[in-house]
């Protein structure tokens, strides 16, 4: 059984005019059969119109995850906003397992008081209940945080709705030139904002573990150069501009180092750069092969990387201190773009089969490989911080779009901006 919803998200921030034309869409292209029925009652707002329909944001988050099946609004028997107004027997009749109610009130016209309660309908018990005061600009993020709490309370897994995505967009100008933009949006694609724009290519954004810095590759000075940009302050530093390739930045779990690919020695090799001291240590020493795309294992002591030392690109593992690398992938003759799930269990990669490229996941303990996607033009996998979903880039109708698939392959989502090429996604960590 395939569920198929199309949810158009309004309220698109008009960062730039060409963005304002785009419509952000999350489409569930394959859902879990075990989607949990939940009743989401529109939050009450006494005597005023709230600047944001928070329950709609929560509804889109939960439905878009593929793990929940919110009751249609017309089926809601009543409109309670707090526990005293809830008749649990009604909601049991609707076979809803969870019930979310809440209300928003205006404190002084600028600050809003938000409270919510999540109930287990069958036990007639409150699972979570909280109250917040936020400015109008904080309502959307708070809605995502409430969705995270509902998700966690009912699935036992960490919710990732309050996270962000970074990605690169490309538009073709009328004169044949291109405009590249590095953008950051909410996890649902809303609130896109441009953090870098260039006529030259931008590649490989990667989030710092604190979720406030992005490292990326920019060709703005005529060749590859690695930058680190802080989202909160806008501060931007060039951290690698050596002769040759400067690319594939990846943050260490402590946020103090970057693994990089540099070819300053004549051949692409993996290095580790200490950001504060600028100390550079070389990890790989294989002068005949391409060694690139290093990512850290959660133990902080080892890296996975792509190398063609065996003739074709495969994923290898090496100690951060160097030494002999051991091969990790054996299935298929093309495996690249490794990303490790934050829990350390899975390796996501681009898996080539007969000239087509798919996202596959390998269980690092057993070595079992599962191909998760179908188009054959899939690349750049990036794990969600809860290790459950994998965001990646693919193509539809000749345009780059983003998509996500669950590690078990059962939930599939598509997230794209119509008419604009989108590529190179990176899912942020959970913001502290």
């Amino acid at each position, binding site marked *: 059984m395939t569920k198929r919803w199309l949810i158009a998200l309004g309220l698109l921030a008009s960062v730039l005019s060409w963005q304002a034309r785009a419509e952000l869409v999350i489409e569930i292209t394959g859902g879990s059969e075990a989607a949990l029925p939940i009743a989401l009652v529109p939050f009450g707002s006494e005597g005023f119109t709230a600047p944001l329909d928070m329950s709609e944001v929560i509804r889109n988050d939960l439905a878009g995850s593929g793990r929940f099946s919110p009751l249609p609004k017309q089926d809601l028997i009543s409109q309670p906003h707090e526990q005293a107004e809830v008749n649990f027997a009604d909601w049991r009749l609707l076979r809803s397992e969870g019930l979310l109610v809440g209300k928003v009130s205006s404190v002084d016209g600028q600050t809003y008081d938000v409270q919510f309660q999540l109930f287990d309908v069958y036990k007639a018990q409150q699972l979570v209940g909280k109250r917040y005061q936020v400015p109008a600009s904080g309502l959307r993020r708070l809605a995502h945080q409430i969705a995270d709490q509902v998700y966690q309370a009912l699935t036992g897994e960490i919710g990732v709705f309050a996270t962000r995505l970074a990605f690169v967009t490309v538009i073709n100008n009328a004169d044949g030139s291109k405009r590249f933009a590095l953008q950051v949006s909410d996890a649902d694609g809303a609130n896109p904002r441009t953090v870098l724009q260039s006529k030259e290519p931008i590649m490989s954004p990667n989030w710092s573990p604190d979720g406030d810095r992005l490292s990326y590759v920019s060709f703005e000075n005529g060749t*590859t150069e690695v930058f680190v940009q802080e989202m909160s302050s806008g501060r931007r530093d060039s951290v690698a501009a050596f002769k040759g390739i400067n690319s*594939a930045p990846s943050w260490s779990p402590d946020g103090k180092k970057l693994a990089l690919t540099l070819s300053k020695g004549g051949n692409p090799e993996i290095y580790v750069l200490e950001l504060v001291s600028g100390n550079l240590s070389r990890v790989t020493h294989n002068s005949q092969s391409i060694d690139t795309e290093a990512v850290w294992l959660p133990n902080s002591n080892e890296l996975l990387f792509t190398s063609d030392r065996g003739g074709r690109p495969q994923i290898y593992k090496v100690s951060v201190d160097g030494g002999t690398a051991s091969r990790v992938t054996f299935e298929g003759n093309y495996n690249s*773009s490794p990303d490790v799930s934050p829990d350390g269990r899975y390796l996501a990669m681009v898996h080539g089969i007969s000239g087509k490229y798919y996202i596959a996941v390998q269980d690092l303990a057993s070595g079992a490989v599962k191909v998760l996607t179908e188009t054959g033009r899939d690349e750049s996998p990036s794990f969600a911080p809860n290790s459950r979903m994998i965001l990646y880039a693919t193509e539809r109708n000749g345009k780059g779009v983003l998509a996500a698939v669950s590690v078990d392959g059962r939930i599939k989502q598509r997230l794209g901006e119509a008419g604009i090429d989108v590529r190179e996604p990176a899912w942020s960590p959970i913001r502290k």
Partner: protein
Amino acid sequence: MKVIKLLTVSLILVGLAGCSSLGSSKKDSDAMQNGDVSIEDRNADSSGLEGGKAYGSDVNSEKQVIVGEGGYQDGQFNDPSSPLSHRIVYFDYDSSTVRPQDLPVLEAHAAYLSAHPNASIRVEGHTDDRGSREYNLALGERRALAIRQILMLQGAGINQFQVTSYGEERLAAEGYDESVWSKNRRVELTYLGR
């Protein structure tokens, strides 16, 4: 001194696929002029003209050039019958091995660079858009370096080169079949300051 340089280059070239075919120092000007070299020149009409250099009206009379003796004239960069007008070299899938049919053109560029030590050239590597972008960035550089090594073996100096890779970030053509991919797997040569 040039011998020392060439020796160094030869050492660098150990292990370079296809280098055995480079050992020939045969200067076959007929091959240089041969129009069936399978290289497409997308820059023939646009590049190299901005400098306002006066090109001789005798461009077409310069056919009998002697490669290696500095016989090439600037005008030949735009003369389709000259190998110097060919400044794109194509590659097989996931390969940085230069095809034998491209060697005459590279020999001509090497001869020009050798005879004009002040000339410099940008060697830009590209790939098709399949697979990993980062791996392709490295593959593009490997292609560019393979071209540079051949040009150096033939007498060009290392300081005459600016090597860069765009990987799959600057496609020459877009599409989903081998005819498109093969146009993207390339190294572009651009003479600087011309």
